[in-house]
Structure formats: C-alpha cells, structure tokens
C-alpha cells in the first residue's frame, strides 16, 4: 500500500482513492509537510446528473416525483422541498391547510427515523465501537442491532403510509397528497410507534453511556431552519438562521449563500458569502433549536448532556451520533402525537389544494436528515418549469468536512496508513454524506517525497 522513495519524514501525500458508486463518487487527498496539512481535497468526481437542466420544460406536477429520484435515502426531502417551492410559485402556499403540514411532518418523521437509524447503527456505530462493520458488531451487540432494525423498519412503514411505498414514494404532490390514509391504518401502526419510541430512548442512553467520543472541537457556523409559525423543531417550514446572526427568508438564501466550482470536485461548494464554510444537519439543528424539540426529546437531551458532561452548543461533530439519536426520539414522539390526533374528518378532508397555472417563482428548503435541501423554481403559465435550482445538504457541508479533515490530519500524522484512513473515514461519516456508504471501502495509499521536490499526488 505504501511507497517510500527517498523517504523523509517531513512531507507526504496521502491519497484515499475510489469512494466509488452509490449516492456519489469521491476520494480524499491529504498533502502534508511535517504535521502541517498543506492541502485537503475531498474530491467528488461523480459525473454531473443534470437534474436542473432536464427539469426545464417538464410539467411542474412531475417535479416532486422526478426530484425524489435524486436520492434513494432521502426522497421525502426532495419531494417536500419541491412541493413547498412550487406551491409558492403557483400562489397556493397560503392555502395549504394545517392538516397537510402535519401530515408532511409525519411523512418526514418516517424518513428521519429510517435514515438516522440506518446511519447510526449500521454504519456509524461500528466506527466508534471498533468494529469493521455492523455484521461483526452484531456478534457482540445483537440485541441493540435488532432493536435498531425494528425502528428502521417502522420508519419505512411510515413513509409508505403516506407515500404508498417506502422506496421512491409517490404519494405527495403539489398542493398536498394524492390521498389521505385511513384512520384504521394509522391506528394500527400507533402501538408500534410507541414501542419504538421507548426503544429509541433506551438506545440513545446506550450511545451516551457506552461510546467514547473523540474530541474535535471547532468553531462552526451552524445553519438550520427555524419555524416561526408553530415554534416546532423544523422539518418542513421556517426561516433559515445561523449562530452567527444570519436570519433570512427562504427567498433570500442566495443573497447570503453562494456556490463555487472547485477544480477537484464536480459538486459545487456552498459557503456563506464573505465568510466561508458552514454546517447543516443534526448538530446544527440541535444547537439552534433545542427548546423546540418534542418534550420527550428535550428531557432526554438534558439527561444526555449531563451524562457526557457537555452542555449545548455541541461543537464536536463526533457527537452527531447522539444528535441523531435525540432527533430520532423527537421524530417518533412527534409521529405518535400526529397519529393520535388523526381522525375521520382528517381522512375525509380534501387531500390537496388545486391551483391555476401562472408565471411565478418559488424557493424553499426543508430539513433533510443530513441538512437543508433548498430548491428554487421559475414556472410558466403553461404549467411548465422554466428554471430549476437545487442545493443539496452534502454540497453545503463539503467545505466544512475538508476543514475538519485538515484539523484531524494533524493528529493522525504519526499513525500508519490504515489507522489514519479509518480515522478520516470516521470523521467523514459524522456528516452522513451521500457518499458515506462508500467511505468504509477506501483504498489508502501514500507516497513519501523528497522535501526538495515538488509534491504530487499519486495512487489508485
């Protein structure tokens, strides 16, 4: 794996190649001199997918189902962001009834539960506990994995309740849903939601007790939605705020955030104009709105903070594992509340608001499990899309991931290749990026260079 030519300990190039397939393709390059990290590149080299281009000219009613195909893990995020943005564009945003907003939150709860639990227990926890994978972890923690799988399954079932199926659901539309669920379907699922809520509280306590969290404190700018209408922990609605004073309407997002092309990545890098990197996702949401969590999750959060002896704001993203646990408890408790209140009048209410096509523009971001997913559409009066813009959460976190890696790389400079690679992968997985599925399978290669020669990348 390692080539050592003209070995000097002063400089080296580390290449983590072939993050390969799945939700994205990428690689990691670290260029170091002594313990100073000269360059960190998280390369995303997946070919552009041109969604924004081929949405042009399509009927706007097709957009939620088309954009849901962008991601196999968080299709609800793309459906909800596009629905809310397009409802603004066609002028019906103010007509969407409270019931639709609640059912959309329930829909999103399903996605948060499924996505968070899959990431926490199948992909991230093995890193913390020192296992190669969930398979080897299951030998020692079988009951924990089984309970997690049961909760993940429930998340999928909640998505299917409103979306007709859990993979690429098709139930949502501009204006609401194609149909409302039967009360009997909802009531049938409720006992399982309550059971899983109890299990998830215990599992989160386990994560606080059994896991040792690496300490990497950084002064992040956190960005998340804040719901000003109902004061709840935002999934679907709200202004976009940060811990450094940003407080913007959804329509102002591009006034404060810009995307830049960088040579080493086909994914654009998002940054706060004039300032730089920022973080979206569970840690940002938790730090910016803990008082808006469901009371059950708030109580648990207080307990967790005491257990790990760390008060909010958490500035160590390795704690994102716990943040996801608290958010999953929130999602389960919120889902139970919404389902308990659902009645026959709701079932019989009109499932969607109709609209008359018009020329207009609408912008909206919602909270995907891994952070804000922001969409903007311009539509024409023939019901077609004239322009589309989509900024997913992973491109917003990419610059912050690189900055985290720069910090971490100093501490792993003396480690052998394999261990250094594992530490880097673990850090990347804190963000649950869409390329996270592949970071367990990186090839790690480094070369030693004569310090007088120019450094160059090498490897797979």
């Amino acid at each position, binding site marked *: 794996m390692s080539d050592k030519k003209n070995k000097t300990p002063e400089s080296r190039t580390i290449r983590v190649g072939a993050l*390969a*397939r*799945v*939700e994205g393709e990428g690689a990691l390059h670290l260029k170091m001199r002594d313990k100073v990290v000269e360059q960190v590149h998280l390369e995303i080299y997946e070919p552009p997918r041109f969604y924004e281009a081929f949405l042009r000219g399509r009927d706007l009613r097709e957009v939620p189902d088309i954009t849901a195909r962008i991601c*196999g*893990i968080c299709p609800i995020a793309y459906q909800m962001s596009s629905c809310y943005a397009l409802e603004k564009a066609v002028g019906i945003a103010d007509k969407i009834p409270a019931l639709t907003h609640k059912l959309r939150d329930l829909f999103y709860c399903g996605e948060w539960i499924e996505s968070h639990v*899959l*990431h926490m227990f*199948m*992909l991230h926890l093995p890193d913390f506990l020192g296992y190669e*994978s*969930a*398979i*080897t972890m*299951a*030998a020692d923690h*079988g009951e924990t*994995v*089984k309970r997690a*799988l049961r909760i*993940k*399954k429930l998340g*999928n079932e909640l998505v299917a309740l409103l979306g007709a199926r*859990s*993979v*690429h659901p098709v139930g949502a539309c501009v204006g609401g849903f194609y149909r409302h669920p039967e009360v009997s379907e909802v009531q049938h699922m409720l006992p399982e939601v309550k059971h899983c809520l109890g299990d998830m509280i215990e599992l989160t306590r386990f994560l606080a007790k059994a896991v040792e969290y690496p300490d990497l404190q950084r002064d992040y700018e956190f960005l998340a939605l804040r719901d000003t209408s109902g004061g709840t922990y935002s999934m679907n609605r709200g202004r976009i705020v940060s811990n450094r004073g940003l407080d913007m309407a959804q329509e102002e997002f591009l006034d404060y955030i810009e995307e830049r092309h960088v040579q080493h990545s086909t994914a654009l890098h998002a940054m706060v104009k004039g300032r730089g990197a920022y973080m979206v996702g569970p840690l940002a949401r938790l730090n910016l709105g803990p008082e808006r969590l469901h009371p059950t999750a708030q109580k648990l959060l207080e307990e967790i903070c005491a257990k790990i002896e760390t008060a909010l704001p958490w500035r160590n993203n390795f704690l994102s594992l716990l943040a996801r646990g608290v958010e999953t408890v929130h999602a389960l408790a919120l889902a139970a509340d919404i389902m308990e209140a659902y009645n026959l009048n709701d079932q019989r209410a009109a499932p969607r608001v109709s609209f008359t096509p018009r020329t207009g523009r609408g912008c909206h971001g919602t909270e995907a499990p891994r952070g804000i997913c922001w969409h903007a559409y311009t539509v024409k009066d023939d019901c077609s899309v004239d322009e589309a813009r989509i900024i997913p959460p992973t491109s917003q976190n990419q610059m912050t991931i690189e900055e985290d890696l720069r910090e971490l790389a100093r501490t792993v400079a003396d480690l052998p290749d394999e261990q250094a690679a594992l530490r880097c992968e673990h850090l990347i997985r804190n963000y649950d990026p869409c390329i*996270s*599925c*592949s970071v*367990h*399978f990186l090839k790690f290669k480094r070369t030693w260079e004569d310090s007088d020669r120019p450094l160059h990348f090498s490897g797979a």
Partner: protein
Amino acid sequence: MAPPHILVASCGNPDAGADAFGPAVTAALRQKRGQTPFFKVIDLGIRPAALLDHLEGVDELIIVDAALLPGRKPLPGVLDIDWDSPARPPLAHDDPMSTHGLSIAHQLELARALGLLPPRVRLIAALINSPAAFQPGQTLDPKLAALVDEAVRRIADV
C-alpha cells in the same frame, strides 16, 4: 399445519438493461400467482437495504436478481442455486458499495449474525457476463426477457 412462509424479493433498476431482470420477474409473478399471507412478493428496486425489514417469520427466501460473472458464457436458462453454495456467483449488486453499504449479501450476513436468516435461501438469477449490460436507459434485452417466464415458473411451482 400452516404452510411455510415464502418471500420472493427482487432488486434492480428497471431502466438499466439487465438490471431489470429481477423487477420483471416479480412483476410477472404477481400477475401469475398473486400474493397470500404465506407467499409474499416484493421488489426492492434500487434500494435493497430494506430486505432486512421483511425477513421475520420467513421460512424460504428467494432472491431474484442478475448475477455477474465477467467473461462467462451466458447460460441457456436461469440459474437456480442455494445461497450458501460455493458455486453461487456474485450478484450484480453484491459489492459493498450499494446504497448505504447494505447490499443483499451484507444483509443476509447480518441476518445470519442475528439469527434472522430464513432456514432456506435460494437465488434465481440471470447470468450476465459483462457490466456493460447494465447500461442506464436501456430496456431488458430480449434474450433475458425470454428467461423471465422460466424464472416465474420455477418460483410459482414452489
């Protein structure tokens, strides 16, 4: 005595050439045989990570997919083989880099570690000899489409 619970699960992308084989088989199977409480047919699509959700109480699991053996001459019929057979070829999605790292093979290993693996697991597959057969935007090749009926017949006869 209750009949055994059988789960038939396909995976693949219906718009990616040979990858459409599994979904085509389960779609045809639903039409031919329908579903009962003891005979369930699911298509996991491009996200096979949900297989684990369906394994509880299953006595026999039948995976339907395309299997990839580069350079191997195509079989005249479908491959019908025990999952644990040393001769079983890798699935088209067997590599660990499927959606969020949970391929069919990984999930079945996890199920085994948790004691959730059904007593019998079979693979029914179309054997593909080149990754190029999975080209996005392509429909199912007529030669593979002709194997769908045979796969359905083998499963329906269970």
